[in-house]
């Protein structure tokens, strides 16, 4: 299977309205910038989006959020995303807030073939409403996996088989989403030759990646620049 695409548009050619999309990144760190820009241009709607923040500070997935392309969102934290908070308050979007560890594990479970798991996280809170409770050493609630049609993720390096290598804290949810989606698109800052990423340093084996392309014009925005010795 030829995985290498020329750009985000080619990689997203099978993406349609009504699909479920996972999008990697923590805030704006490690987001698939080229794919998000392409989605902004695509005439799709009624999307279900699974992403920790659904963009932030007017950037990232906020671009398609403000176009009202998202019908339902799964996320853990909306502080710092006033556009999403506003749509939530106006009931313009359905949002399921998921504790971040449960969010990660539900995505991981989908990729791992796990049909459900029990966790104490969220027990006794609004999150537990309607969920099965089972007593272990303490009461736990049943959580189910989160699957997706597509995942869009970004890595620093990737090769034509789809092996990926991430820089610093840019991994976050991306390796999990790569496993959980039927079609995973990886965009990379550097498309390298097979073997350039040593086998023992591969963070995501290419088995989990269906399309890969060399991205361009990365902004790599910093949300809160803090420097040693400087105030605020």
């Amino acid at each position: 299977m030829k995985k290498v695409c020329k750009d985000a548009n080619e990689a997203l050619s099978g993406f349609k309205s009504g699909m479920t999309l996972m999008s990697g990144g923590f805030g704006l760190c490690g987001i698939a910038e080229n794919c998000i820009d392409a989605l902004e241009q695509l005439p799709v709607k009624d999307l279900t989006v699974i992403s920790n923040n659904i963009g932030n500070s007017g950037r990232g997935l906020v671009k398609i959020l403000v176009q009202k392309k998202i019908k339902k969102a799964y996320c853990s934290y909306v502080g710092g995303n006033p556009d999403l908070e506003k749509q939530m308050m106006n009931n313009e979007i359905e949002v399921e807030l998921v504790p971040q560890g449960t969010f990660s594990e539900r995505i991981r479970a989908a990729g791992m073939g796990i049909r459900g798991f029990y966790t104490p996280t969220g027990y006794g809170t609004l999150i537990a409403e309607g969920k099965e409770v089972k007593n272990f050493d303490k009461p736990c609630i049943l959580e189910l996996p989160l699957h997706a049609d597509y995942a869009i993720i970004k890595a620093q390096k990737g090769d034509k088989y789809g092996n990926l290598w991430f820089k610093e804290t840019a991994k976050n949810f991306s390796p999990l989403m790569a496993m959980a989606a039927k079609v995973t698109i990886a965009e990379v800052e550097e498309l390298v030759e097979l073997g350039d990423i040593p086998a023992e340093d591969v963070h995501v084996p290419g088995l989990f990646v269906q399309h890969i392309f060399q991205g361009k014009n990365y902004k790599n925005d910093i949300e809160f620049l803090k420097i040693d010795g400087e105030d605020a």
Partner: protein
Amino acid sequence: MSWSKEQMADQVVKLFTPGSSVNLGIGMPTMVASRITPEMDIMIHSENGVLGVKGRPAKDEVSPTLINAGKETISIKPGASFFDSALSFGMIRGGHIDFCVLGGMEVDAKGNLANWMVPGKKVTGMGGAMDLVNGAKQVIIMMSHADKEGNVKLVEQCTLPLTGVGVVDLVVTERGVFKPNGKGFDTLVSAG
């Protein structure tokens, strides 16, 4: 007498055992990092995927892919490691993190915590808070003693939506260090 934020942070740091692993929440708890001395050999965990946060980076060290859970640029110390979100929350949910320090809107006598939403007014989401309170070995809440309207935030019973049930070990405010005892709060240290 009441403590400054720095003095509150110092009280939190006193609770840490040398060599322990610590997760610091967004807001006031973030400043605890700057009060930890290198001799304490503390490993700071941030749930976006790093263990071994040092502090703020020098100007020439800044990297957009090196951040903490508050999305602030950071630096790391020798011995640090990076990992994905599932492993990061495995550290938390699997009971491997010694202390977590979180902000709070209400803590009650039974150790219940509310810190993620005010119905009809404000929703920030829980982020990793619900995982942290159920997973970390010790849960410390660092918050102002009262809200902006002057209502005391250490209450008999939480009225806001809960983050966790019976999870809080200690509360540090500008007035002292408190421990929920089921009926009220024991004062372990008084600010004066």
